[in-house]
């Protein structure tokens, strides 16, 4: 018997709605294997999302799940963690949901260092709504709203998270499927706000407009552009041109928000009583 993914999926939910070749399914499998490896209790794990293709993920997962408003997944997840600190809180979403519409929630959750894991599936486009350009659409790439090429430089989600104060930041790709699981295990174990960005493929609304003949070509591009952090240290800036670093990019230990908030409540209560 191979790995039983369906143990963690709501009965009757497969096949999922994602397009042929969409990497979200690969990421979801990585997440399921990570959850299995950590033996997370279904009733003590909340998976929260906003709106978008990637945000359909919690609908399939047999856990405590919440499908919320666009970009606000992190805000709802923060509420769950504050009210029920014993729960494992995972937030999932796409690039448009996470760093455009939910950009503000994202940076402030990073700043607070609240203990949760935010999995961002970055496919460089708003897939569900018809292929509009997102803040991670590469410069010059075509989208339905940039038919002559995108004039905006893209966000680097990992750098944005590090700059905003996230204490664990990692990046992987949908091609490197086994690594997704390892990164997520480390991220979920980390006490603090952990961000895992997975570079993904959207053959339907991004690939077709940008001269990718098939999803296989998109996967090959992910394979060729990814450079593990350790390997990058030995490479020159010229060799790293056009490459993306993968692996654990940043990690530090800092006071965690829920614990600090608890201490504040105790301190104030004691000062009032005394």
């Amino acid at each position: 018997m191979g790995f039983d993914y369906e143990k963690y999926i709501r009965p009757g939910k497969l096949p999922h709605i994602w397009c042929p070749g969409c990497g979200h399914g690969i990421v979801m499998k990585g997440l399921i294997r990570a959850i299995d490896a950590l033996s997370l209790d279904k009733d003590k794990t909340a998976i929260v999302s906003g709106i978008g293709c990637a945000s359909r993920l919690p609908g399939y997962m047999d856990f405590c799940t919440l499908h919320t408003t666009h970009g606000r997944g992190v805000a709802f997840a923060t509420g769950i963690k504050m009210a029920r600190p014993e729960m494992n809180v995972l937030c999932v979403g796409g690039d448009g949901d996470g760093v455009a519409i939910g950009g503000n929630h994202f940076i402030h959750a990073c700043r607070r260092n609240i203990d949760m894991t935010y999995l961002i599936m970055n496919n460089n486009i708003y897939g569900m709504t018809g292929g509009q350009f997102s803040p991670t659409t590469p410069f010059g790439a075509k989208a339905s709203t940039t038919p002559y090429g995108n004039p905006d430089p893209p966000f680097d989600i990992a750098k944005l998270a590090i700059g905003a104060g996230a204490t664990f930041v990692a990046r992987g790709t949908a091609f490197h499927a086994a690594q997704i699981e390892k990164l997520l295990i480390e991220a979920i174990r980390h006490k603090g706000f952990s961000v895992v960005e997975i570079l993904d493929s959207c053959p339907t609304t991004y690939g077709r407009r940008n001269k990718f003949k098939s999803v296989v070509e998109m996967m090959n591009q992910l394979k060729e552009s990814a450079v593990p952090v350790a390997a990058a240290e030995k490479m020159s800036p010229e060799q790293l041109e056009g490459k993306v670093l993968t692996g654990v990019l940043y990690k530090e230990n800092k006071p965690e928000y829920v614990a600090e908030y608890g201490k504040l409540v105790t301190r104030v209560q004691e000062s009032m009583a005394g």
Partner: protein
Amino acid sequence: MEKKQPEIKIIEKYCKGCHICVEFCPTQVLEMRGFTAVVKNPDACIACMQCELRCPDFAISVTK
């Protein structure tokens, strides 16, 4: 002792025909038949699990 051959199972109704498994199998075990991936050459399987890991549609399972 004879080596046990890995068993590859494909759930046809889940497969969306994206070609990922066929293209990235290092020993060309799989092929496309119409819109579905099928096992063409099971004896060549080395149980590297790459098809199972990369199948976005939960359609392939490999048992070592």
